């Protein structure tokens, strides 16, 4: 594994999945993984499989919901979309994240 690639920071995968679904619309698991990798522009080492437990977690909390559909190559695949509570949650998480990052940045002495 390339040492310059950082692993997914703990607890942020759920946030990434939510954000992806919010900005792109309904996607299947592969699509979500792809999209996250694209946005990361190769700076992230993602085991694509790990998004499935994350998806399940979000579904159990009712923040996303899934339905069966057909993929590009006509396979049965599950498409996920963000729900209203999911959007609310995303807003809250994003805000919290921004504040955390701001705080850490200030502590490290490079105001952004």
């Amino acid at each position, binding site marked *: 594994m390339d040492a310059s690639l950082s692993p997914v920071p703990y607890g942020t995968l759920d946030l990434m999945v939510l954000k992806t679904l919010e900005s792109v619309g309904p996607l299947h698991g*592969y699509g979500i993984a792809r999209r996250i990798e694209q946005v990361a522009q190769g700076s992230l080492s993602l*085991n694509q*499989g790990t998004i*499935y437990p994350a998806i399940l977690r979000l579904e159990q*909390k009712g923040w996303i919901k899934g339905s069966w559909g057909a*993929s590009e190559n006509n396979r049965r*695949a599950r498409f996920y979309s963000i729900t209203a509570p999911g959007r609310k949650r995303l807003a809250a998480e994003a805000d919290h994240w921004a504040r955390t990052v701001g705080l850490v940045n200030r502590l490290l002495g490079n105001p952004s």
Partner: protein
Amino acid sequence: MTSLRAVFARVRAILLRRSHSDTLDAEIEAHLDLLSADYVRLGLSAADARVAARRDFGGVTQVKEAYRDTQRWAIVTHVVRDLRHGLRGLCRSPGFTTAAVLTLALGIAANAAIFGLVNPLLFRPLPVRDAERLTVFARHQKDGNTVTTFSSAEFDTLRTQASRWSNLVAVAPGMYGLTADGLTDRVAVSFVSENYWDAFGLQASFGALFRPTDAELQTAAPVIVLSDEYWRTRFDRSPSAVGKHISLGGVPLTIVGVGPQGFRGDSIFMDVKAFVPLHAPGFHAASRPSRVLGFLKPGFTLDQANASLGAMSDAMARDRREVPKDVRLMASWERFSRPSPHTARPEIATALIFGFLASFVLALSCVNVSSLILIRAAARRTEMALRTALGASRPRLALHLLIETLLLVTAAGIAGLVLGDGLTIALGRLLPRFLAPFTGELGFGFDWRVAAFTVMVICLTTIAVGMVPALRATRTSLEALHHNGPTATQGRTRLRRGLMMLQVAGALMLLTVAGLFARSLAATRVLPFGFDRRGVSDFGLNPAEIGDVGNVAQDRLKAVLAAVTVLPGVDAATLTQSVPMTSENYSEAQVYGEGLPLAAPKIQEVGYSSVSPTYFETLRIPLRDGRPFSSADTSTAPRVAIVNAAMANRYWPNGNALGRRFRLNSESAPAVDVVGVAANILNYSVMQDEATPFFYLPLEQHPTPSVTLHVRSERPAATMFRDVNAAVRTVAPDIVPFNVQTMADAIEAAPDGLLLPRLGAWLAMSFALLGLVLAVVGVYGVIAYGASQRAREMALRIALGAGPQDIRREVLKSGLGVVAGGLVLGLGLAATFARLTANLYFGVSALDPATFATAVLVVGGTAFVACYVPARRAMRVDPVSALKDA
């Protein structure tokens, strides 16, 4: 909200296990397809694309596992699987399982039994409303005495002025003959203040209960309420019992109702059969001292409330002509005041001590099973290493082992409860007579407290037994897979040896305590009681219970004595106010004398008993001087007394007590002539100082209606019981003999008699036996296992020329070192425990060297044998096969 949804989702997933994992499979397939399609587009071959897709995706199995863990509570499925797995594992090694379960069951049984014994007496609340706020009033004196009874004036003061309490009740107990339909029973009766039933929030199970409002009615037509149990046993639950006219101690009363089911009065130690209003005419109950109970009002702590009693306490002391600062009026919680609110409570201390011994036995069995599991774990190292290699985490493995232990302990707990229940009943039989009614009815048996206690013991035991092995066993490296055979790890050996040392020490402590109790018991067997209790049968008689007092009572008692004396086989018979060591009916009197050193500021109170002339002859108490009482010492004759040697020595140290005079309770009372000096006997307790002053008065001159009839005969006790009862029935059909038993039995069962040494010896010896067995098994197991671990080393030594003796010495040396350490530790433990409990032993010093030496010899010797047997086996190791196996 969201978490609730997650819970539902998880529960659904557990129920619909299959369909969900199918969904995941489909999703993963779709994912891999899309991914490899992209790679194909980038120019890879179909096969290469598939491989690349797999690589990007990561481990499919791990993802599924993580997915499943999210889906359900991983721990639940793991536990279920571990339970099944553990059960199979335990069934596969029945020897280990049986040994472990039995060992623990014995330990748990010992604890359940002790708890079961103490539970109904000390913990079970009274079946009344707000029992947790119920308090008992008492006056605690500076010298340690506690007075728990109050006069009716004092009760009125408390009722009107103790503002932090509500619903105060007064209870005066008594024993009476209850005559209904021509049959007389001797029953315990409580005279209770009229608000009794309302205060306790109790309802009649049949008929009606008396209320404060109908006090006047009760004076006109006196009433009685039966206990539910007495209604059942005596009147067969007949509705016609209510309204029946009966007589209690000769006073006519009407039964108006039956108390609630299971209610036996407000004292756990009494089995009250009937309740009568305190002011019912004919009993003068209101003028008797009574126990006062009350409910602390909500919002006050007991300490605050007690602080408010100060002025009342002082006033009460002044009225009683006591020094106010020497006595404190206080209320204590009823549930912590059984049998009485004394500050020093020997019953509890004794129960705690035996509880401690029982938990010690359990601790020893835990240690034993711990080492069994450790030994088993060593054999399972390969299994553990394999599971680690396959990806099981350490907490998972530890959990698995703990669950196995839990299974073991639960099985042991169930077996222990069954055993313990039997043990409790057996112990209950040893308890004194006054508890006898409870062993059957109230039952020392199962209730939720016993269940909760046992579950708690099981949990603690699981942790105690399982924690160390679980943590140890999971600290396995993969190396274990390479080394095909077990290799002794230094740390683990040290742990096992530590446990073995504890076992030896524990066994030594238990055995020492048992030895001390056994010697106490032996000491009581040769005790100079001063009287001959063998061949004597006792019969309690009390004409006052049927309303006969004064001369009538005495004449009837005399008639009974005369009839019994002439029965065939009767050598002697006598009436007495009190029976030695049974603490019934003792009286004390202040002694004022001529020539007595009573100018001392403190007036001496001396115990006495009224007896018939034949008393000394019947109990074979020698007279040192003077004469016994005679039939000439009647109520009109000059007053006489016989003093014991201790009293003679204390008050007339120059000898010649004969002819001296003293007065009872007041300087103006009629003088009493000393006409005899009797040998000292143990009047109060086996532990008493022999030289306690005591004196005797003729029953005729100091009559009391409540007496015990002693009958001496060579005939079997059963014959005497039958004949004497028949004789009493003929002479006085309405007087019912009670407490019919041999004098020896009465003393055996009396708390001040032989009960404690007997109960103690019995319990401590069974605990010690258990401890010894556990230690033998433990030592043997550890040594045998250690020797088998070192088989290869021994084989090498033999191959290099060591003789069998050297091998034996080697194994023995390692074992005996640990045993010696355990003995030293055990001596320390035993000495500490014995000194803390020194007042339980009798006739033997708590640090009795002979007892300690015997215990060391027994434990040391047994442990030596337990070491020697495996050492001999190690000696015979066959070097060729041992080396080949390794």
